[in-house]
């Protein structure tokens, strides 16, 4: 155990590391409580949709996971640009954490969408433009992880990943706006009015539904996603520390 103390990541980290850990635990606790509250609101507080019934309740999670992914992928862009400017690995950790968390959230988004579509559209999946671009968005970030894996030199890996992370946000933005520009999508626009006359499964929202949606959106975007990213960065720091210790040990 003494060996671990011999190689602290950096001086400042050990000094207030305990404080940061407490902060993270507190933040995680609040996040968990809020997520449970969100689910409770979605299941018991929000009014039932007249035409779709209880299936509609999945929408709160469906939309929120997309916005969570959007926040996470935006963190990747910030991390990437900052890494290229400063060359400090911590920014790359942020970018990587953003991609991993965002990819999971994007997958939740796709899965909940499919579960909703089964009773409403009578199919798990359809090659609708919105669905296709959401799927491609998910694959873009899988490609990001593959690209990272293919590069041996840690410095090159960070540089390439930073640039790809910036480029990849284009598919996220495209997925966001495609619903406004494609009149032939059947995916309903939940926020704002759908320009698509062919949208199937849209619904009018009562005030309890609006409250629930907003609450869930904010929780997923500003609590759940940041908390997950934070944990992922900590994991990366620990991994790096282990690697450093290994290397120093081998040098001896």
């Amino acid at each position, binding site marked *: 155990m003494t060996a671990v103390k011999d190689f602290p990541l950096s001086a400042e980290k050990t000094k207030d590391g305990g404080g940061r850990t407490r902060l993270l635990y507190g933040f995680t606790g609040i996040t968990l409580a809020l997520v449970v509250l969100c689910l409770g609101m979605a299941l018991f507080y929000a009014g039932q949709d007249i035409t779709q019934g209880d299936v509609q309740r999945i929408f709160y999670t469906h939309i929120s996971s997309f916005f969570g992914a959007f926040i996470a992928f935006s963190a990747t862009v910030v991390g990437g640009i900052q890494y*290229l400017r400063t060359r400090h690995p911590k920014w790359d950790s942020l970018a990587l954490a953003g991609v991993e968390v965002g990819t999971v959230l994007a997958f939740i988004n796709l899965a909940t969408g499919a579960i909703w579509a089964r009773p409403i559209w009578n199919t798990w999946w359809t090659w609708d*433009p919105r669905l296709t*671009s959401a799927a*491609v*968005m998910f*694959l*873009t970030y899988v*490609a990001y992880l*593959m*690209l990272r894996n*293919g*590069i*041996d030199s840690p*410095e*090159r890996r960070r*540089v*390439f990943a*930073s*640039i*790809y992370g*910036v*480029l*990849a946000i*284009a*598919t996220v933005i*495209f997925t966001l706006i495609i619903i406004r*520009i494609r009149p032939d999508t059947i995916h309903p626009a939940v926020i704002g009015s759908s320009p698509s006359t062919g949208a199937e499964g849209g619904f009018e929202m009562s005030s309890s539904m609006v409250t629930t949606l907003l609450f869930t959106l904010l929780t997923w975007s500003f609590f759940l996603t940041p908390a997950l990213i934070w944990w992922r960065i900590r994991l990366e720091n620990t991994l790096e520390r282990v690697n450093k210790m290994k290397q120093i040990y081998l040098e001896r």
Partner: protein
Amino acid sequence: MNTPFLQVMLAVIAKDFRAELRSRELIGTMLMFAVLSILVFSFALELDRIARQEAVSGVLWVTLVFASILGLNRSMSMERENASIEALLLAPVSRAALFAGKFIGNFVFTLIIGLFLLPLMTVLYNMPLVSGWMFVVMAGGIFGFASTGTLLAAMTVQTRAREALLPIALLPVALPLLLSAVKASTAIISDAAFDTWATWLQIIIVVDIVYTVVALLGFGFVVEE
């Protein structure tokens, strides 16, 4: 202090064209692939008159994307073969100028393939593919592929998987372009009014500008250690 941007760009373009004229490695493989792809598609899809109208622009663009990937890989591995990219980096030239040179080369090569495919598919599929707007959409789409493709090929050529990774990295990022280009081409073929598909052309132009700026800025980071 640096050699002027334009001179470097033109020198790189001239060098690539001269090497290409001599070996015909790039255009030759791209062209052969494109023709084969179109023939295979027409067999595989067994297109009747109506289905053809729907599918023809998809066939055109998928073929173009893969042909451009072939060309991009070749163009970048040419710089890696004798480590000659190092000689480019040693010279007092801006990295953006090197990018512009490689990018315009790739753009022109792929455009040549596209221009060859239009009359060929007009004959084979009996569709009116040769038109002014078609040319504009084609140039716009290829412009975006070539700029992101040049950037990404410079990355993937340095990975363990090399050539295999370029399509995986490029296709998802190129989707906004690909989708818009297919939609615009379909509209042009079916003789739709400009207003109905102008949005697609606008998206192509916006994406082209964004991608090219990112690629110009990013290229230096990618080639330098």
